[in-house]
């Protein structure tokens, strides 16, 4: 029996979330290809350089907010209902949060498209970070608010399901998938408060003319209070898959449930008090607090290193179950021709590289060398662009049939797709990193200046541009292949009989019974997380507020 047969109502919500996610992925990905060709001067016929920034805003918002978070909502709904073995309590409430998220996302997207389509009277050419004093149309901010509120409601839906389960199962350990969902959402509530305050109390009234000016440094700081933990909101669903599903795909079992819990708790504690590492070159923030952010960030490496160990150990276990032997020979026994496995494994591999380039970003004074250069997008296309995106695509191959009841179609296309993505991303990201070392700026439609020549550290600038363009085209190809497979599966014939599928997840080698109960004490970890945030942000924020909530203020500058 597939999930869609066991949980028909919830399967529908999972389907909707994933479909919206994949639609956002398609549009955002198309924009990405346009950008890759435009900024490298390979082809500038799609949009003008001024409209490039509308495309860039769309790329960032559609992919980094809507694709990732709708995918998370689909995966977490599936995970909670499956691991607790009960449906979400109220279909109406579930539809409500989806509705908020969808309407919010649609509104924001329409305002962004207004920069490209003259007949839409709104405009939001402010990029995914929407820094004041640049001002977008109030509808943009409103859309974001609705979307975020929808995610809060989604979290409440999952918590409620858990509380009901708890009522029937006192004293039991929280099933691992639900544990991960709850911890992730706690992190989200804490961190999204920053951007919610920024938009609700400052940017939205300011864009409506209710308040006259806002303090750009304060609003920027509130954004980055949220802006770092949001990357964990993208990453933790990928880890959720790597820990709970990938071992099965490899033919094995999760090496350690307790360590998985430790990793997620570490993310809850450390995700937020690091935001200043996005503001190392900002004035107005004392160096001591930048240093604290730096040390916290370096310690954030730990949960990822632990994950690397556990995931590889789990896969190795699977390979040996399939007959693998030798120190490294077991790698050959893994199902590399199975798209769900291959995608997740390649995503994990690429994430390691992304983590290392992130270390450079985190290195405070080292950051001077690459801040706001093309190195930074090189880094995050490895992390959110592959670790998250490729995992979500790969697990789509495995999950989509189970939530629709339809067989996966075009398997041979799906088999090749993760590899195309991996090669394309290597080409593009490698060249972006090198371009960043030369000082070439990010977020720029035409990084070719009369006054400035860039000197490549390894390889020449024109060769880097070409590599970025080729990588971008390959990625777009990979994306189209993925959407083709999903589309073909979705439309592929009607369900004649229930899909025979084994969707059960094996128990871990080292189960929850081996993990200290304190790990399940969510209140404790939340409290510690809040203390760490006060230590990291308390003084700098009060300094910014001391001279006035809105001072030094800037009036809106519409773009």
């Amino acid at each position: 029996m597939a999930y869609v047969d066991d949980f028909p109502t919830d399967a529908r919500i999972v389907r909707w979330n994933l479909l919206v996610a994949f639609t956002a992925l398609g549009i955002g990905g198309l924009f990405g290809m346009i950008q890759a060709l435009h900024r490298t001067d390979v082809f500038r016929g799609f949009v003008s350089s001024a409209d490039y920034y509308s495309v860039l805003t769309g790329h960032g918002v559609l992919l980094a907010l809507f694709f990732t978070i709708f995918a998370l909502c689909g995966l977490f709904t599936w995970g909670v209902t499956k691991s607790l073995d009960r449906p979400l309590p109220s279909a109406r409430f579930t539809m409500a949060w989806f509705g908020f998220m969808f309407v919010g996302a649609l509104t924001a997207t329409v305002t962004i498209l207004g920069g490209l389509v003259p007949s839409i009277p709104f405009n939001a050419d402010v990029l995914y970070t929407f820094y004041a004093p640049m001002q977008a149309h109030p509808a943009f901010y409103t859309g974001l608010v609705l979307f975020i509120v929808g995610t809060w409601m989604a979290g409440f839906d999952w918590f409620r399901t858990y509380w009901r389960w708890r009522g029937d199962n006192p004293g039991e350990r929280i099933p691992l998938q639900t544990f991960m969902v709850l911890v992730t959402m706690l992190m989200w509530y804490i961190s999204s408060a920053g951007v919610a305050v920024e938009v609700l109390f400052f940017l939205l009234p300011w864009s409506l003319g209710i308040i006259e000016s806002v303090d750009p440094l304060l609003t920027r700081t509130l954004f980055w209070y949220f802006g770092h933990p949001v990357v964990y909101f993208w990453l933790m669903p990928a880890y959720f898959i790597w820990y709970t599903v990938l071992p099965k795909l490899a033919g094995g079992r999760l090496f350690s449930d307790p360590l998985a819990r430790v990793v997620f708790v570490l993310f809850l504690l450390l995700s937020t008090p690091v935001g200043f590492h996005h503001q190392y070159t900002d004035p107005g923030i004392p160096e001591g607090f930048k240093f604290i952010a730096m040390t916290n960030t370096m310690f954030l490496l730990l949960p990822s290193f632990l994950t690397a160990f556990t995931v590889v150990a789990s896969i190795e276990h699977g390979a040996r179950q399939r007959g693998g032997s030798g120190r490294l020979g077991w790698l050959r026994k893994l199902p590399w021709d199975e798209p769900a496995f291959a995608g997740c494994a390649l995503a994990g591999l690429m994430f390691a590289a992304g983590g290392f380039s992130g270390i450079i970003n985190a290195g405070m004074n080292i950051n001077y060398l690459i801040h706001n250069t093309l190195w930074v997008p090189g880094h995050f296309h490895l992390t959110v662009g592959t670790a998250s995106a490729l995992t979500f695509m790969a697990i789509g191959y495995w999950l989509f049939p189970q939530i629709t009841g339809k067989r996966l179609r075009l398997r041979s296309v799906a088999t090749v797709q993760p590899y195309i993505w991996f090669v394309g991303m290597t080409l593009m990201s490698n060249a972006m990193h090198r371009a960043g070392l030369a000082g070439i700026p990010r977020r720029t439609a035409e990084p070719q200046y009369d006054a400035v020549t860039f000197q490549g550290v390894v390889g020449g600038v024109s060769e880097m541009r070409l590599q970025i363009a080729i990588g971008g085209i390959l990625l777009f190809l990979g994306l189209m292949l993925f959407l083709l497979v999903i589309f073909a599966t979705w439309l592929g014939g009607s369900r004649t009989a229930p899909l025979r599928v084994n969707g059960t997840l094996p128990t871990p080698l080292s189960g929850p019974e081996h993990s200290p109960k304190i790990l399940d004490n969510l209140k404790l970890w939340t409290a510690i997380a809040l203390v760490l945030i006060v230590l990291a942000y308390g003084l700098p924020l009060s300094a910014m507020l001391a001279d006035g909530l809105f001072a030094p203020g800037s009036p809106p500058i519409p773009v």
Partner: protein
Amino acid sequence: MEIHRYEKLWTAAALLLIVGLIATVTYGALGPGVTMVDDSGGTVDAGSLGETEFGDPGVTQTGENQYEVHVVARQFLFQPGTSSPIRVPANSEVTFYITSADVVHGFEVAGTNVNVMAVPGQVSEVTVRFDEPAQYGIVCHEYCGAAHHTMAGQLVVVPEDEYSAEGS
């Protein structure tokens, strides 16, 4: 909680790496003395820069080999920098005071580690040593509007004997 031996070793190695990275950054701060931009530049009213030292941006000599440069970043140029290059002599210590008259801009001297944000209302203060004569390009690397990609300038480090202070 049982932890596999390899996992313990791995965790220890990871912690060692983390501490090593923190030590590297700390060395950079203490040894070569690379300081981060902070709040020492103070705040300013972006709407009335004309009444501040930014009212007449440019290079001023403040000591034997010490100079100050006040730079205003605005849509879509640097003052000075775009219409005429910023000129300082070699073998000098130059303190830049950078702010923005409108939106957030970036100030990056390509190929160097002079890389700061120009935030309206705040002043970014950075001190740079220029040893050799050279010519540098300056790029705005923070999106600031539809002509962001046209915003650039130049910084020229002139041989000492050829330099004559431009006055304020």
